[in-house]
């Protein structure tokens, strides 16, 4: 698990290892994300989607994995000992070419707040889905999985019938008098192969 990504020990922009492109380097400036922040609903961000003229990609000494900015910060000394290879500029080549995602600097507490909020929303959604399952499943199915209590709410039929009504409306819209089910001769009739027999 990449727990360092929760923001507390993330890399300061100033601590991004040198890539040999310093003269032109400009990292998204961090607006102060001090503890006095009280309105975390809006990311403190400088988004520069249009400013992506060059891309740099720090490389670990062993070249095995690219350095995630979310990883532990390095000191200048350690950074200088790392083999760093600037990656060539890749502007979008075509309409179908993948664009690099613009980096946004966000206060850690904002990130934590948003994460917490969205996880809670997902949890609420999961609970709603479980409740919805209980609402829609037939009583026989519920009994089979261990819910013997009668969970056949009155609104269920109404809701399913509404969905059926929508489907009927679609059928009506698609109806054409010129298209009819063909009439078969008796010799064309085959035996029914269903599980009702």
């Amino acid at each position: 698990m990449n727990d360092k990504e929760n923001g507390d020990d993330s890399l300061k922009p100033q601590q991004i290892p040198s890539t040999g492109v310093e003269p032109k380097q400009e990292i998204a400036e961090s607006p102060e994300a001090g503890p006095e922040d009280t309105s975390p609903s809006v990311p403190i961000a400088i988004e520069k989607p249009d400013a992506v003229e060059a891309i740099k990609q720090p490389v670990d000494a062993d070249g095995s994995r690219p350095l995630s900015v979310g990883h532990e910060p390095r000191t200048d000394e350690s950074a200088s000992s790392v083999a760093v290879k600037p990656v060539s500029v890749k502007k979008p080549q075509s309409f179908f070419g993948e664009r690099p995602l613009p980096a946004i600097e966000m206060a850690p507490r904002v990130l934590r707040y948003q994460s917490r909020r969205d996880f809670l929303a997902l949890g609420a959604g999961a609970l709603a889905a479980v409740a919805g399952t209980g609402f829609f499943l037939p009583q026989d199915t519920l009994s089979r999985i261990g819910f013997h209590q009668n969970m056949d709410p009155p609104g269920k039929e109404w809701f399913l019938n509404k969905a059926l009504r929508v489907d009927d409306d679609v059928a009506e819209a698609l109806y054409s008098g010129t298209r009819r089910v063909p009439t078969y001769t008796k010799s064309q009739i085959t035996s029914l192969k269903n599980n009702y027999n």
Partner: protein
Amino acid sequence: MSHSTPPDCESKPTSTLPEQPGVLVVRKHHFLVHWSHWLNVPILLGLILSGISTYWASPIYQHKADPNKGNTDVAADIGIWICAHVPGQHHYSSPLDWIYNHMSLGPGMLALALRLHWLCAYLFMLSGIVYVAGLVSGGGWRSLLPRRTDLLDALRMFRYYLGFPFAKLTRHKWLHPRFSTKYNALQRAAYFSVPIAGFLSVATGWAIHKPMQLYWLAALFGGYNTARVWHFWLMWIYILFVVPHVILVFADGWDTLRSMIVGWSTRVERSEVVVK
């Protein structure tokens, strides 16, 4: 939110609390994409359960009637086999219905299963529209497009996944192939295929549901019965996709899972640090 500080105040901080450094993040998924992604979980579950219940009424895969039990359904044969060979299932009361009792709403409830299936199908179509809208407005569709190098890259990833468990066991370093794209070739193949499978599921579903009104659609899939076969096997694509998808998301780490819930990722390694 902090605001810009007037120059004369810069040397006189009013707060003694240290400033926290910012975190670089990228918006990996548009909110419509991750919302529709999660919505699909209960919807697909409902579609599969109600779909197999519907299948029970008229199975696609049948054989000549069994002389002893009169059974023609292959799914019932599988249930009989399970009850005969799987420990703990020998005394199951209805071996013929084992599959339907464990993988669907149950046998003998066609009407209810169809109503639920249609409800879920309309929700699935809505969710699909939301997903496409998210892909278009967030530009994420570009990451899903296949590339010329995908075959080679897919083989590299395949080799990586094959060797990874052995490398772990033998404590050897096993390097992850590097890509300069949002997804690796295997991910891209999967994430590109699944929306297509979704589209085909909807199309074959309509072909089965309205074979007279949409006769041309049924004909496109080879007729009513063949469209049913398509529809059935497209369901298996979802099932076969979901299992490795979930395993790999957890294997890939917290950031990947979180980005699908929150939308943000703190993995900025690929390309995003802006240099002007």
